[in-house]
């Protein structure tokens, strides 16, 4: 038998492979902005859940001086792509300000050229399109037509920063210590089903929607084909992209509340639906009949954010971890409890998310909305 004090020694001096991504979300429910210190510290603590092939941050409330303009973050894998992209952008928008994104040398791999644009839509445009629809169209065109350019952030007063490296190195690279936001969602990546490249890192974004995701969608093939019917083109070679588009389709375009969207992405089982009272049964049955192709199958836990709202959701049989906590006006979501405890040792509340049931934090809402009565009871 091994003596106990030898158990932790790895004779080959290499790290054991830990499979799984890390996700972390932190939000001030009063909308007060804070620095990158805590989010970076927390995600660094989950270093072993990623493997250096992707990390990223979504930060809300970072461009108060430009908050009326769409902020585009674009990565260019070739100079030529920038010319094409500039032409597309000029076609759709007035470019208010643009610059190369501020970066510093850091421990990241082959960073592409990063450009930031603040744009507004033009006055003369088709009447039937909203500003958001025009942005969506421009993003889809740039991502599919230029070949080497990818818009990785396209919302107002928010931004995504991501790339190939550990999340703490990505923070360093993008000089995130210079930014403040009221909502940070963070991702450390361990890619398994798609290549590790700059566009494939999380968060995924369209307009002001962002998704960080731990898991693998075994339903990706059909999720993607369903979304393609509504004009979403998946170009980033990873399954998480469909989550961002699904939230955009359901919440922004079809205006469904998150309480309904969670029942679409992670619906109850038929057995449970059959046992419900008639009105509820009919509703949930119709949801599954109509949106069955958007059921997200396979293991996942995600943090979805847009302005004013941060949502945690896991798959319906809860195959990936998700911990939630609050302390004062701050809400935390994390793959691991330790990461939360590290930045806030004394918490008001801490609990484990239940499969398929969303946890929602809203600015001004002051309290978290939980669908499950059971969970509420357990907390008490």
């Amino acid at each position: 038998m091994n003596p106990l004090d030898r158990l932790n020694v790895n004779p080959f001096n290499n790290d054991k492979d830990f499979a799984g991504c890390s996700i972390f979300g932190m939000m001030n429910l009063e909308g007060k902005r804070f620095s990158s210190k805590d989010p970076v510290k927390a995600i660094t603590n989950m270093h072993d859940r990623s493997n250096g092939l992707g990390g990223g941050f979504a930060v809300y409330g970072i461009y108060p001086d430009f908050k009326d303009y769409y902020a585009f973050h674009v990565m260019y894998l070739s100079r030529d792509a920038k010319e094409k992209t500039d032409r597309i952008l000029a076609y759709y928008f007035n470019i208010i300000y643009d610059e190369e994104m501020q970066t510093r040398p850091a421990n990241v791999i082959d960073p592409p050229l990063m450009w930031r644009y603040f744009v507004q839509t033009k006055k003369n445009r088709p009447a039937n399109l909203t500003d958001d629809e025009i942005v969506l169209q421009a993003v889809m065109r740039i991502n599919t037509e230029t070949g080497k350019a990818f818009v990785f952030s396209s919302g107002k007063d928010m931004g995504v920063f991501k790339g190939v490296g550990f999340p703490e190195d990505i923070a360093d690279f993008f000089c995130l210590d210079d930014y403040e936001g009221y909502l940070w969602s963070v991702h450390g990546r361990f890619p398994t089903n798609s290549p590790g490249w700059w566009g494939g890192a999380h968060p995924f974004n369209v307009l002001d929607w962002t998704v960080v995701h731990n898991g693998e969608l075994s339903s990706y093939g059909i999720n993607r084909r369903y979304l393609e019917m509504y004009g979403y083109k998946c170009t980033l070679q990873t399954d998480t992209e469909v989550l961002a588009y699904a939230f955009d389709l359901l919440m922004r375009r079809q205006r469904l509340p998150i309480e309904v969207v969670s029942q679409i992405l992670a619906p109850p089982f038929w057995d449970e639906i059959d046992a419900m009272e008639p009105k509820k049964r009919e509703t949930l049955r119709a949801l599954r009949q109509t949106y069955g192709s958007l059921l997200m199958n396979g293991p996942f836990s995600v943090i979805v954010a847009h302005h004013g709202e941060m949502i945690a959701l896991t798959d319906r049989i809860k195959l990936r971890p998700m911990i939630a906590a609050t302390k004062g006006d701050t809400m935390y979501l994390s793959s691991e409890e330790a990461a939360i405890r590290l930045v806030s040792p004394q918490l008001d509340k801490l609990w484990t998310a239940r499969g398929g049931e969303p946890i929602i934090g809203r600015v001004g809402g002051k309290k978290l909305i939980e669908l499950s009565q059971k969970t509420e009871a357990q907390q008490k």
Partner: protein
Amino acid sequence: MKSYLPADYTVVRDEKKCIRCKACVNQCTYDTHSYDAEDDIIRSKDENCVNCKRCVVMCPTQALSIQKNPNVYRENASWNYEAIKDIKKQAETGGVLLTGMGSDKPHLTYWNHLLVNASQVTNPSIDPLREPMEMRTYLGAKPDALDLELENGDISLKTKLTPQLTLETPIMFSAMSYGAISLNVHESLARAATQAGTYFNTGEGGLDKTLYKHGKHAIVQVASGRFGVHSEYLHAGAAIEIKIGQGAKPGIGGHLPGEKVTPEVARTRMIPVGTDAISPAPQHDIYSIEDLRQLIYALKEATDYSKPISVKIAAVHNIAAIASGVVRAGADIVAIDGVRGSTGAAPKVIRDNVGIPIEFAIASVDQRLRDEGIRNRASLVAAGGFRSSGDVLKAIALGADAVYIATAALVAIGCTVCQKCFTGKCPWGIATSDAWIGKRINPNIASERLVNLLRGWNMEIKDMMGGMGVNAIESLRGNRLHLRGVGLTDTQLKILGVKMAGE
């Protein structure tokens, strides 16, 4: 005229084992065996044997063996025996060669070139014996979006969905008409569908009054002959299917010879006893897509919009555009029957040469409907030659909502695919309207065999889904990333929308 054709099979009898019980004599409906009392011996006429194996299975002492006649014409790769035989047959009769069942040509099956995915490491596989695995499928038009209201945490639904069929397994029994098959088979299919939570299709011969109690699990067919179609029949079914075509014989109609039109068949079909029941090639009130729309809505009106309307078409070259038109004409379900689809009787040359494989039809129709943004408006049912749960799963992954099986169901209750259904003398009691032979199917036993088959296939599909890390069939449907091709060309892969193995 002397026939130049040798017998296809020879009956080999082990005289030491034969106890002269005459089971074979009684069982063979083709008069192959006869008892010679003088010599106390059973003699066999090889030329009558169709190799249905009824006598072999029923012989209590295993004294019989049916073997391919080695004494056939010399064949080569081009002039194989089938080609030589067919020509001689036609030279002797001057007729169209008839056959039964689906095409037996090997080059038309593509399921064998598709392989299924499974999870390893990054995604846990799911054990269907211990965790939920959902197979429920709804067929019918779905809206693009739902109108919902949220009040105090309660969601209330404003949109009303059109009528749907509810399937507990994505497998239904395909159209087989009473007349082509015996009443006992119809009853077995009806009872099995009811028990398994799926549907059987009446075919174009109406529904016998005794089976109306299974109407909730019946899809009632309206075909070009309009046999057995009346108000009560339309109301009896859970859905109505307009039959435009059949995979085994696209472009042609059907012909139930007068000798099969017994008083019972005649009553159900609403035609005189002993008259030929001829289904014209087209429906004579449908010469265009707008005519189809009229019939779809006539049937919806006739049934107060209470049932989904299915339109069954054979998979032909331009199937994607045709299916799109059918959906736009208002069909809630489009059923597509591939080139390997089966039949009770069809000209052999048509069965083996007309139409396209169902694999390509499903793939191109599903993709076309998505490209046009109308995939939600109708469900897609695939038919034609499904031999195993593996075939079914692959069809669903390609984009079908459900499948129709017919040959597999008949095989489950006795059929040995001898391809002689058109003779009406099926020794297994299936493809016959002769009540004496029809008795060989006992609906108690046959329905149990059918339910067993569905249960077995259902469990196998669940096992494969669990392996993929998918626990609801809607996540498999149209999910072509779970398929890979082997031995396919780039063009074939492109049409199937499937990557090559290793990609």
